[in-house]
C-alpha cells in the first residue's frame, strides 16, 4: 500500500474563544501549568494504590504516612530549590552537600554554643545561602556551566564539612547530669525527631490537638511560599523567561545575572533550612549526611514534569514528584524489598517518568498500542502487549536512612 490517505481529522471543532472572555476552560488552562502534569498525579495514585493493595491499613494510616513524608521532607525541600535552578536551565549538584554542612553546623551550634533553634535555623540558612551565592556568582559572572560549578562545590563543601566535624558524627541528644535531655537539646528535637510535634494542644483543623510533625509542616510551607513566588511575582516570571530564552529575557529588560544568582542562593538557603531537620531526624549530624540527596531532588523535579532544558515546571509538580518517591520508598520498605532492588526500581522510574511526561504522550499512545498489538500478533501470535501508561509497578526508592525505623 504505497499510496494512502490519512483519515481526515475529526470534523467539527469548537470555535476558538475570543481572547477577551474567559470561559471555565480558559481559566482551567491558566491554572493547569501550576499543578504540574496529569501523568504525575496518575503516578501518585498508582503508588498509593500499590500501597493499599499490598499493605492496606498498615500503609494507609496517618502515622505511617507522616513518617514516610517526614523521612523525605528534607529532600523535598531541596527539590523545591532545585526546581528554581532547573527552571533557569541550570542544575545544582551541591544541594546535598549544603544540606550536610548545614546539619553539621546546626549540631555544632547546639552542642558547643548551646544556641536555641531560633538562632540555629537562621544561621544555617545563612551558611547555605552563602555557598549558594558562590555557586550563582561563578555561574552567572564567570560564565562557568552550573553543572561544573556545583560539581566542584559538592566536593568543596563536603570537605569543609568533614574538617569541621573531624570526620565524626555529632549527636544532638545531649544528656545532663540528671540523665535527662538538656532543654536546648529537647527543643532541637522538635525540628524533626519522629514523635515530636509542633503546635500540640491547639485545636487545629485536620490534625487536632496532636499537633503537626515539623518536617511535614516545613515542606508544605516551603512549597506554598515558593509556588506563590513563581506564579505571582515578577521574579517568578523572570525565572521562567531566563530558562525559556535567555537572550529574549535580557532584551525584555530582565536582569538575567541577578535572576541566576538569586536562584542558586535560594537553593542554598533552602538546603540550609533543611539541614537542621535532617540532623534532628537522625538525632545526629553525620559528616556524610545528605550525600546523593541532590540526585533524589533532581529525580523529584524531573518526575514532577520539569524540563532540564529550563522554562517548564512548577513547585507543585515537584511536590508530586517528591511524594511519589517518598511513598514508593515507604511501600517498598513495607513490602520488605531489598535496598538493592529499590535502587534499580528507582533508576527505572526516572526514565519512565521522563518518557510519559512528553506532552503528546497520550496522543502518541493510541497508535503505539495498536501498532504494538499488530506487531506482536503477526510475529509471534502473542496477545497484544500492554503498554505501560504510568506503569503500576512499584517504582522508585531512596536508600532509607539508617536511623529510620
Amino acid at each position: 500500500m504505497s499510496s494512502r490517505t490519512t483519515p481526515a481529522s475529526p470534523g467539527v471543532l469548537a470555535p476558538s474563544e475570543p481572547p477577551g472572555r474567559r470561559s471555565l476552560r480558559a481559566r482551567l488552562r491558566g491554572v493547569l501549568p501550576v499543578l504540574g502534569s496529569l501523568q504525575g498525579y496518575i503516578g501518585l495514585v498508582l503508588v498509593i494504590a500499590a500501597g493499599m493493595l499490598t499493605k492496606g491499613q498498615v500503609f494507609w494510616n496517618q502515622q505511617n504516612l507522616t513518617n514516610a513524608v517526614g523521612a523525605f521532607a528534607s529532600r523535598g525541600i531541596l527539590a523545591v530549590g532545585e526546581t528554581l535552578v532547573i527552571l533557569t536551565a541550570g542544575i545544582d549538584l551541591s544541594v546535598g552537600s549544603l544540606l550536610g554542612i548545614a546539619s553539621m553546623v546546626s549540631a555544632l551550634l547546639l552542642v558547643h554554643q548551646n544556641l536555641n533553634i531560633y538562632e540555629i535555623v537562621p544561621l544555617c540558612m545563612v551558611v547555605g545561602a552563602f555557598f549558594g551565592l558562590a555557586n550563582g556568582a561563578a555561574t552567572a559572572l564567570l560564565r562557568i556551566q552550573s553543572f561544573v560549578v556545583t560539581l566542584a562545590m559538592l566536593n568543596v563543601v563536603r570537605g569543609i564539612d568533614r574538617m569541621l566535624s573531624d570526620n565524626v558524627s555529632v549527636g544532638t541528644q545531649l544528656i545532663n547530669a540528671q540523665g535527662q535531655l538538656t532543654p536546648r537539646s529537647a527543643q532541637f528535637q522538635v525540628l524533626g525527631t519522629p514523635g515530636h510535634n509542633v503546635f500540640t494542644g491547639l485545636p487545629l483543623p485536620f490534625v487536632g490537638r496532636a499537633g503537626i510533625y515539623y518536617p511535614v509542616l516545613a515542606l508544605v510551607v516551603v512549597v506554598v511560599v515558593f509556588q506563590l513566588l513563581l506564579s505571582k511575582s515578577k521574579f517568578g516570571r523572570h525565572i521562567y523567561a531566563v530558562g525559556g530564552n535567555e537572550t529574549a529575557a535580557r532584551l525584555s529588560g530582565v536582569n538575567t545575572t541577578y535572576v541566576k544568582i538569586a536562584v542558586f542562593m535560594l537553593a542554598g538557603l533552602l538546603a540550609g533550612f533543611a539541614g537542621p531537620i535532617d540532623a534532628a531526624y537522625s538525632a545526629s549530624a553525620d559528616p556524610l549526611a545528605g550525600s546523593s540527596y541532590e540526585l533524589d531532588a533532581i529525580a523529584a523535579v524531573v518526575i514532577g514534569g520539569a524540563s532540564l532544558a529550563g522554562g517548564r515546571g512548577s513547585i507543585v509538580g515537584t511536590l508530586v514528584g517528591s511524594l511519589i518517591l517518598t511513598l514508593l520508598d515507604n511501600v517498598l520498605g513495607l513490602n520488605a524489598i531489598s535496598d538493592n532492588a529499590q535502587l534499580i526500581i528507582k533508576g527505572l522510574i526516572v526514565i519512565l517518568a521522563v518518557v510519559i511526561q512528553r506532552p503528546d504522550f497520550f496522543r502518541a499512545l493510541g497508535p503505539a498500542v495498536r501498532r504494538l498489538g499488530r506487531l506482536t500478533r503477526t510475529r509471534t501470535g502473542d496477545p497484544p502487549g500492554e503498554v505501560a501508561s504510568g506503569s503500576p509497578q512499584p517504582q522508585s526508592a531512596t536508600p532509607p536512612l539508617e536511623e529510620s525505623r
Partner: protein
Amino acid sequence: MGREIHETQPDNASGSSAPAAPGPGRVILAMNAITKTFPGVRALSGVDMTVRAGEVAAILGENGAGKSTLMNILAGVFSDYGGVIELDGVPVAIHSPKAAQHLGIAMIHQELNLVPDMSIVDNIFLGREPRTARGTIDRRRMDEQATRLLAEVGLTLHPRRPVRQCRVAEQQLIEVAKALSASLRVLVMDEPTSALADAEVRRLFTVIRRLAAQGVGIVYISHRLEELDEIADSVTVLRDGAYIGRREMAGTTRGELISMMVGRPLDELFPRSDSPTGPGEEVIRVEGLDLAGDRREGRAALHGVRLIARAGEIVGLAGLMGAGRSETLEAIYGVFPRRAVHGNVRLRGRRYQPRSPRHAIRNGIALVAEDRKAQSLVLTNSVRFNASLAALGRFMRRGTVSAARERAAVAGMVTDLRIKTPGLNTAVANLSGGNQQKVVLAKCLLTEPSLILMDEPTRGIDVGAKAEIYQLMTELARRGSAIVMVSSELPELLAMCDRIVVLCEGRVTAEFRRGEGSQEAILDAAMDRQAVLGIDAASPSRAPARREVSDE
C-alpha cells in the same frame, strides 16, 4: 500514525535522487484536498495546490492562513493530515522529513533552522556528510562544495565560521545554500526574503530562476507582493485555511490578489502623509557612535554614526546586510558591553549612557529585535507571558503580578493588533509567524516607550497587517513617540519615514529627507564603497575586542 508505511517509500523515491528531466508544463506536484487540524484549530480544510516542472508557484495568504502548515505537510513535518499528495502522478505518503528528503523535496522554513554552534559547512551537510573511501567525513570535499554553494547565493563567508556569528540575512542565505546541496525535485521557500535587502533578493532570484530552468518546481511564499510580479508564474491564494483560488501571474493585478487574500479590497497600504504638525523636540541624538566589531559574535563595527530622532518623527535606517543597521539600534538599546561602545548619546536632551536593556526600558526605549525566535520570544510560553514580560512592573499590585490587569492589557493589545490566537494562554510557538511578530510588537508597546527602535518590524507580516502596523506607527508618532526603524524594504522606508539615514560598512553615507530620496539614490549610498575603503583596511586592528554580549 502510520509510520509503518515507511518501508514502502524508497520504491516511490527510486530514481528521485536525480531531478527528472524538465518537461514544460508537466505537473510534478499535486496536493489534493489537504486538511490539517491542530487541537482547537482547523488550520487547513481541503486545500489544493499544484506545481509544474520549472514553475515558480507562489502561495499567498494572510498571517495564519495556513501557508506554512501546508508546506510543512509536504516537507513531512506533520505526519497526520488528510488528503492526497502526488509526485509525478504517483501518490506518496510523506510522514517524516526524511521521507520528504528522499523524494527530493527540500524546504527552507520560515523560522531559521540552523544549529547555532556548528559551522556553516557542517550545517549545510548536516545528516548527509560526504564520506571518504575510509568512511571518515570528507572535510576537503565538504569545504569545497560549501564554498561553491555559498558563492552561488552570494555569500563570501568562510565555511568554517560558526552560524551563531552570522546575522539573520546571512543565515537565510545559508539555508538556501543548504537546500541547494540536496538533489531537488521541489524546493519550498517559506518567506526567504523577509530579512533580505534588495541586492540579496536579486541574488536569490537568480538562483531561483536557474533552478526553475533546470526543471525544479519551486513553491514560494512571501508577503512582498511586488516580488511576486517579478518571480512567480502562478499564485495560489489561501484564506483561513480554505482554498480560495489559483491564478496565473500574468494578467492578474495586485489589487485582485489582495482582495482574494483578505476578502475585501484594501484601501491604502501606507497611511502616512507628511507629518502634519512638524517634528517636535529631539528625543534622541546620537553622535560619533563607535562600536568595536566582533567577529566571534558576528557583530559589525560602527564608526562615528550620527542619528537624530525627534518626537513625532519616523527615521529609517537603510543599508545592506552587515552595514551596521541592527548594531546601531542595539548599541543604543544597551545590548553590548559598555567598553565596546563609545560616543555621545543624548536622550531627551540629557546625557545618556546605554547600559543595559533594562536601563533602556526604564528610560522609555523599546526594541523590536531582528530575530523574533532567538531574541524576542519564549516560544514555549503563552501569548500573555510573552506580551507582558517587559512591562510586568505595570501590573504589580501589592507585590504580586495582578493577573486581571495583565490579562486586560494583553487582551487589549491582542485586539488592537488583531493577533490571531485561540486564547491568551496559547503557546506562542503555536501561532503563525506573522502573529508571533505581532506578539513581539505588543510586548514593546506595553512598555509605553517614547523611543521605539524597530528592526524589520513588518518581517513576515501580511499586507493587511502591514497596513495596520503602519497605521499604528503613524499613530504612535502622532502621539509623540520617536521611531527609528530598520527595514530592507525600500518602498516601506520611502513611504513611512520622515528621514532616511543610509549606512554602509558602519558609516553614515547619506541622509535623505522625506520626498528627496529614491530607491536608486539609497542603493547607491548603501553601496558607496569609496567612502570607506581606505579606512576599512585599517579597521580590523581597531576592533580586536572579543567580548561576549554584556549581561548587565
